[in-house]
């Protein structure tokens, strides 16, 4: 297709580059670079943040996220099995749970869990427990659907083949279906870890001591202290340190799963020649 209408293609490309250059020039002229530098790249402000943002805030964000992820994964697995259960009340409960937590902002869940539940049940959780529960409850709703979809995505033929070899349903699930489901859900699960990392920015509503600050809280606090946006920008970059590698990992895993099929096709094509 590349051969056709060379000239027209050249013109089109020229116009595209033109627009790009025009936009860049406009931004350069329009923006107040001094103010931008002061606001976003204020070295003094950055100085007051480093190294705590790495040694404390980044670590806390990762820790909170992992706590929530672990609890959410466990609860999500239970919910997924409930949704696939043959007992209707379990399916109903799981469906209600999932619909509810997928439909309501995490912020409301955090407030309810941090302040409402202690009032209602007259119990008190430590911060880590609260964070684990709050992030986990939200994450579980997403992971439940992922896990369920993963189990159902294993071709029915795999279960049938296992059964036809004399395996019981339970054994076939454990030795054949769930290991394959796990590979299928690894990429979306990684994506849910990213979502939880971002949702962890909301735990400030639970109330935090200085050494418990996560990245967002730390950045906002820095904004107050320095009146510069640099701390917020730093916090944002710290999130990217976590989320971008995860997102590449997720895509890598996805590609690897996809490539297997391609490999099979190639092998089939080769056999003829060999």
């Amino acid at each position, binding site marked *: 297709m590349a051969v056709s209408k060379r000239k027209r293609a050249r013109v089109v490309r020229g116009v595209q580059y033109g627009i790009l250059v025009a936009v860049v020039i406009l931004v350069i002229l329009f923006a107040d670079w001094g103010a931008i530098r002061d606001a976003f790249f204020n070295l003094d402000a950055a100085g007051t943040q480093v190294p705590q943002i790495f040694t404390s805030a980044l670590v806390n964000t990762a820790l909170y996220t992992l706590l929530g992820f672990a609890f959410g994964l466990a609860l999500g697995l239970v919910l997924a099995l409930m949704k696939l259960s043959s007992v209707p009340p379990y399916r109903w409960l799981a469906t209600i749970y999932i619909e509810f937590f997928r439909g309501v902002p995490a912020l409301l869940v955090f407030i309810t869990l941090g302040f409402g539940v202690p009032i209602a049940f007259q119990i008190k959780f430590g911060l880590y427990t609260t964070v684990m529960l709050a992030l986990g409850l939200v994450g579980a709703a997403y992971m439940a659907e992922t896990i369920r979809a993963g189990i159902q995505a294993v*071709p029915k*033929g*795999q279960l*049938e*083949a*296992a*059964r*036809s*070899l*004399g*395996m*019981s349903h339970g*054994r076939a699930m454990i*030795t*054949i279906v769930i*290991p*394959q489901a796990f*590979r299928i859900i690894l990429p979306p699960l990684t994506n849910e870890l990213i979502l939880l990392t971002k949702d962890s920015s909301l735990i400030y509503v639970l109330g935090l001591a200085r050494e418990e600050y996560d990245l967002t809280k730390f950045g906002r606090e820095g904004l107050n202290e320095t009146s510069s946006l640099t701390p917020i920008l730093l916090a944002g970059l710290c999130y990217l340190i976590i989320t971008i590698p995860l997102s590449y990992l997720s895509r890598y895993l996805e590609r690897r799963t996809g490539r*297997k*099929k391609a*490999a*099979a096709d190639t*092998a*089939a*094509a*080769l*056999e*003829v020649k060999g």
Partner: protein
Amino acid sequence: MSETPSTPAAEDPVVRITGLHKSFGSLQVLRGIDLEVRRGDVVCIIGASGSGKSTLLRCVNLLEVPDSGQIVVHGTDLTDPDVDIDKARRGIGMVFQSFNLFSHLSVVDNLTIAQRKVLGRSKAESWNIANTNLNKVGLGDKVHSMPTQLSGGQQQRAAIARALSMDPDVMLFDEPTSALDPELVGDVLGVMRQLADEGMTMLVVTHEMQFAKEVADVVLFMDGGVVVEQGAPAQVIGDPQHERTRTFLSRVLNPVQVEE
């Protein structure tokens, strides 16, 4: 759990189906099937798409549960609610159109896992048996390959070897070559022919008329959930008695001649 009667009398059929009915919702797929397969027989089932061939085969190892009728395999009545179906299935090997090798396990693990977990064989024993069967289907050099590294034809042969490793009394094949490129069909049919020659009892759903003609002891033509015609291949394929059989065969055997 009930007991499987041991070594049935030699003249007993390996598979005996009587009055088998099966519906999916309002769709009657099997409408009274009677069939006996004797030890060592190769029965080929032919018929148009949707005629119920796969459903019949799947009923024979209860991948589909019949609505009514009886299925006795090797002396065990599978439709008895108290039968241990997992145990009964061990005697019935099944080969699927889509191979269904366990995609997360290597070829040899595919062959040994059920031997070990279901029959309780030792690792060494199951490995030996797996090797023997892989050599038999010409895949002695693919022991450690993953299924995705095999061509469709190789996968299907591995699937046959996997079923054989459970020492089945009867093997069910559901269009084992339909998902293969034309040039890979031959290898799989070759393995099946060899199995038949060795005296395996086989029930084969297939569109390969040449294979049916040459290998089958009995050919069964199904249409609309009933067996329309049944007999030796020379008779059913060579000289069909029923109009429906004739139409089907002319379509399948001479696709080019069919007119607009």
